[in-house]
């Protein structure tokens, strides 16, 4: 049984100019112990689809799906209070901006313990012990001290570690990471990715990695979904996606990577998508630049 199964998910937002379809009929499923990457540019609906799973979208959003089930439970049928028992416990999510997604008014320790109190009903001493254990697990030096730190006293990488500690506090079955390293430096990015993949393997979580960075996909994912403008362009396991991309859009994304540049000009997505012969168009623009 898949851990998360979504069929024909549509999310639309009511705007002054009429409804805006952010996600248009996405199918998605993830097995336990699997790392799934969802790739796309901004506006491709990759975050919105996952926020719909979490039930974190604003009132202006309309979520429709033929099926949206987590671990056999139909998420569409649940009342908000029943859903809150699952979200944050069995499914949890970390976000792009670590410093912005922590509450600046409370210490890191308080924010980790809050989850433990709400979902697991631990008493004060248990919470404290578990919070220290979690801080150690995510690799924060002197956890006893850091429990009393406020978000502004920590670096971006440390805040992201605290976010991960909160997310894994209740041993979730599914962890959704929404661009977890976009705001971080390359060296810190490496550490955080290693941490996430390590935790995923250790606890056998499902991990959904939302990103626009093909490098991150290559380094973490088992299977990849490529999204563009709210639609799924391609789904493949990671090796075949990089070896033999099927859709034009994936090919364009891969060739826009600066390390794949041929000559002194980068092919752009629009070169690939809207021209009939992509290879000829690329060569044409390259000679155009050289002349």
């Amino acid at each position, binding site marked *: 049984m898949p851990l998360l199964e979504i069929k024909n998910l549509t999310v639309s937002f009511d705007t002054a100019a009429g409804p805006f379809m952010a996600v248009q009929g996405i199918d998605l499923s993830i097995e336990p112990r699997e790392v799934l990457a969802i790739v796309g540019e901004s506006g491709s609906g990759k975050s919105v689809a996952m926020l719909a799973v979490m039930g974190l979208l604003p009132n202006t959003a309309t979520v429709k799906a033929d099926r949206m089930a987590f671990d056999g439970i139909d998420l569409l049928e649940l009342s908000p209070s029943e859903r809150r028992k699952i979200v944050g416990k069995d499914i949890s999510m970390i976000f792009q901006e670590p410093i912005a997604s922590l509450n600046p008014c409370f210490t890191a320790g308080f924010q980790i313990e809050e989850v433990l109190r709400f979902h697991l009903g631990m008493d004060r001493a248990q919470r404290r012990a578990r919070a220290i254990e979690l801080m150690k697990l995510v690799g924060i030096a002197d956890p006893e001290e850091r429990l009393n730190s406020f978000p502004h006293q920590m670096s971006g990488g440390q805040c992201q570690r605290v976010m991960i500690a909160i997310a894994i506090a209740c041993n979730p079955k599914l962890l959704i990471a929404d661009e977890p390293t976009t705001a971080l430096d390359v060296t810190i990015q490496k550490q955080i990715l290693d941490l996430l993949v390590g935790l995923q393997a250790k606890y056998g979580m499902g991990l959904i990695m939302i990103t626009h960075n093909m490098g991150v996909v290559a380094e973490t994912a088992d299977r990849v979904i490529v999204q563009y403008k709210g639609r799924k362009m391609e789904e493949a396991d990671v090796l075949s996606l990089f070896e033999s991309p099927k859709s034009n859009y994936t090919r364009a994304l*891969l060739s826009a990577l*600066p*390390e794949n540049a041929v000559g002194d000009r980068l092919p752009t997505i629009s070169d690939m998508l809207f021209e009939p012969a992509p290879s000829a168009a690329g060569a044409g623009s390259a000679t155009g630049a050289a002349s």
Partner: protein
Amino acid sequence: MSVTVLEGKNIVRDYHVGGGLFRASRTVHAVKGVSFSVDKGKTLAIVGESGCGKSTLARIITLIDPATAGELFIDGNKIDIAKNGLTKEMRRKVQIVFQNPYGSLNPRQKIGDVLGEPLLINTDKPADERRDLAMKMLKKVGLGPEHYNRYPHMFSGGQRQRIAIARALMLNPSLLVLDEPVSALDLSVQAQVLNLLADLQDEFELTYVFISHDLSVVRYIADDVMVMYYGEAVEYGSRDEVFADPKHVYTKTLFAATPRADVASIKARLAKKAA
């Protein structure tokens, strides 16, 4: 023959912080004696993680902040804005493009005014000439005359970065400092903006100082690379030298940390995972 546009010798910048009623002040050495030189039409990339002093160095090169010590030469002339202030002529020569195109444009200013303002402040060109130059520049960066009367919020991130680049080029600078110009942009838009920068460099013989933490972008655009770590230049050389044979430990760490998107490394990872 190559002409050196920018040269820095032992640039140092200290910041004094704190110093309240109960706390002694302390000095942060943001840049500790960095030297470099860039020839006309070339690109120097400065790489490093946040807090390594690369943006401080950018501010010194752009003549926004003075250096605490050291000498800065632009077009062969020694420049010390702490002592002599900044003339309009110097401002014309050096311009900067910032990282975040959402923050660096005034939301209440039309694009035409954004582009005209450098001319208004630094030259005495009449309004109609400013308007013509702005229109021409819009075309140069791949936008159209119809964009002249629009506000920044009506543009996408990539278009805004084009506007920021256009604004920097209005005064025909010889040196352009690019402070992480593409790190806030999507991959495909990033490719477009990098292409634009390459075209503009060829057309105007611009000299770039390109600040980034993305090594794949640096490898694509740079002629010379300087790696900074805690305010020091730990590695400095031509692109091929630095990428082929990194010498400093930090540079090696940086290369090792950069995610690789090629088939061979995916195969290696999957094999390791299966084992």
